[in-house]
């Protein structure tokens, strides 16, 4: 079984996000970047399937400028076998990414795609779903448990009402939730081996995908600052205030 994991380069979850002074975007200069935590969970799950003898090859794919090779190398250090970077400086929205991934799934004969349910930068939560639609295959989103049985994949999903288990035919797209697993730390020898693993660079043209601008970023602003509170003397006063100042209560 060949598995594709998608990895995205995002701002490290520990880093403080700043907005550019002209409000055109988030300021990425000198900020620590890392692999998206949900993607890391996807890599870990794929590696576990390989260790269990179910997966035969894991391909880690990232879309973006050369810098995202760092995140591919991280995935390779965790246990992926091969990397593919799809080179583009274009700010790609979810549909573009899904189209690019769909082409790789086809050309590499992928049986299972595991990816994060969302990236912690833009929190879109749609690439996996779009990819499944483009591939016309089953999708198991927000996975908290994964099992492969008789050429089917059993996915336990976290939904509002509790847990739901789906049985999907292969190929399928799985998106990971936080509780699927706890990613390991990369071992030193594997960090070194990662450097020697193959990493292909492709362009959208190579894959025959024309990138289109489906969305437009208008403005980025910091959340408004919290206003200072007022101390009230009694519950009655509070009720009075709620009545007079906040409509609709």
């Amino acid at each position, binding site marked *: 079984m060949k598995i594709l994991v998608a990895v995205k380069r995002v701002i490290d979850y520990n880093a403080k996000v700043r907005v550019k002074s002209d409000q055109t975007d988030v300021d990425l200069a*000198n900020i620590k970047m890392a692999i998206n935590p949900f993607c890391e969970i996807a890599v870990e799950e794929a590696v576990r399937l390989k260790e269990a003898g179910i997966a035969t090859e894991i391909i880690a794919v990232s879309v973006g400028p050369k810098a995202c090779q760092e995140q591919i*190398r991280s995935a390779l*250090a965790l246990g992926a076998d091969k990397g593919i970077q799809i080179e583009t400086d274009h700010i790609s929205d979810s549909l573009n990414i899904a189209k690019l991934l769909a082409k790789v799934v086809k050309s590499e004969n992928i049986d299972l795609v595991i990816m994060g349910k969302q990236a912690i930068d833009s929190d879109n939560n749609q690439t996996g779903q779009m990819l499944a639609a483009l591939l016309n295959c089953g999708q198991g989103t927000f996975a908290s448990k994964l099992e492969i049985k008789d050429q089917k994949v059993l996915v336990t999903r976290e939904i509002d009402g509790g847990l739901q288990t789906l049985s999907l035919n292969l190929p399928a797209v799985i998106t990971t939730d936080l509780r699927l697993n706890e990613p390991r*730390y990369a*071992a*030193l020898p*594997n*960090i070194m081996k*990662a450097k020697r693993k193959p990493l292909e660079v492709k362009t959208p043209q190579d894959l025959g995908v024309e990138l289109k601008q489906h969305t437009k970023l208008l403005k980025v602003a910091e959340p408004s600052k919290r206003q200072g509170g007022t101390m009230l003397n009694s519950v009655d006063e509070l009720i009075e205030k709620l009545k007079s100042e906040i409509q609709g209560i």
Partner: protein
Amino acid sequence: MPEYKAPLRDMDFVLNEVLKAEQHYQSLPGYEDATPDMVSAIMEEGAKFAEKVLSPLNQIGDQQGCTWADGKVTTPAGFKEAYQQFVEGGWPSLAHEVEYGGQGLPESLGLVINEMVGTANWSWSMYPGLSHGAMNTLDAHGTEEQKQTYLTKLVEGSWTGTMCLTEPHCGTDLGMLRTKAEPQADGSYKISGTKIFISAGEHDMAENIVHIVLARLPDAPAGTKGISLFIVPKHLPESLSESNGVSCGSIEHKMGIHGNATCVMNFDDATGFLIGPPNKGLNCMFTFMNTARLGTALQGLAHAEWGFQNSLVYAKDRLQMRALNGPAEPDKPADPIIVHPEVRKMLLTQKAFAEGGRAMIYYCAQLVDKVKVSDGEEKEYADGLLAFLTPIAKAFLTEVGFESANHGLQIFGGHGYIAEWGMEQNVRDSRISMLYEGTTQIQALDLLGRKVLMTQGEALKRFTKIVHKFCQAEADTQAMAKFVKPLVEINKEWGDITMQIGMKAMQNRDEVGAASVDYLMYSGYAVLGYLWALMAKEAQEKIAAGTNEEDFYRAKIKTAEFYFARILPRTRSLVATMTSGCESLMDLDAEHFVF
């Protein structure tokens, strides 16, 4: 709860920008793998481990400590599991040879990882730290068979190691040691004796412990020329379930580093194997003495960094009193204490010692690499320079590390004295660093007596020439004048004072002892002055070339300015005291001290 964040940006600055690690590694045979992207990937993973696994165990280690019962030592909760993870991560193998299972990476990169591991949790870091010493011994002096049997297991991490030197009656003066080694018909030896203060001598983290023991052969000459080195495993490799006459009699109850087991080790006819030539044990030990001492120098940096990080958070958060020039944050009930000059002084002192100490250790670590893999003149040159800088790094950095840890505590006011904040632990843990691996006073005698005066000042000149060259090259750089001018003066004065003490020592050897610690501290401030000037130069160039990290580089220049204004002048009083002659120390009769 106090916590540790690996200062990756500053580490990168020192390693790659100031000390040009890429050129350094590419110029040495066998280190081609240490490319910038690889180094950075390794550092990031090491940082994760230090921050997430080791840092949370630091306070637990202090509170629980190690416990001893019936010869068995139990380490604090979580220590064993963390060690297991460390082994699974392959970290013990970093700087060891590929043929014994190592990764063959440079020793200097190992020190960078050790910095993070040690700052996050010094007590824990000593377990793999001691193994490293044992590995270096085996690597340098072991036979092929000994390496295959013991080194591979240590590199893998499934066994740990110790260094057994100290005995109840001899610490600094190893010539007095008594542990005996009786030759046996099969070529092995029966080792008998008691060793004390053995860090990581017994614990529950690994299945076997390889002790490197200093002992005497029956026909050995008296004193230091009659000491041999032996491998004495806790269990013989062929019978891991049986005891080999090695037992832990007790563990010490001590001021700090509670998480590390400091053991009394009893050897009762334990089977051991000679390593290196007979009676040359001390010489064998000296081959990597510099590396070991650098490992302890690191502890000074560790406690300075830890204290700085945590007291900085507190100083920005704690509201108390108003700024002297009027409220800085009028909307708050008081200003954060970082507005006060004296609080800033304590913070900046820690910052200058932590970051400067990092530069000093990384600088020495590159010399360690050169000694290890280069040859001929380059090796000889690096070896001499390292020999000169090592006692300075060890004693100076641990002294200022302790000072920094104290500043960290002080910034917390009364809360610093309360265990929960972790600041008093930092002070207690740091105190040992000025004692073990040669006390400050021993390092000072080594520096002034053996390294400087016995080479007729050659070792010192090797370093002052570097400073001289730097000052000459920067002589016309206007922005560097404030650093270069004082540096030129110190550099000249350093030589003059050395000459002066040397002259007096020809009449009276006590003059060396009486000047030694002040001389060492003076040398430390001088070396750090050079390194801060180097960092300021790098930062100025980056700003001049245009950067979007201007704040970062400006902070480096400001810290260098602080160092030259408020730390380097400490050399003035040191000059006065170290040239004041030995009479003030020696004249009082020992019997009259009580009066």
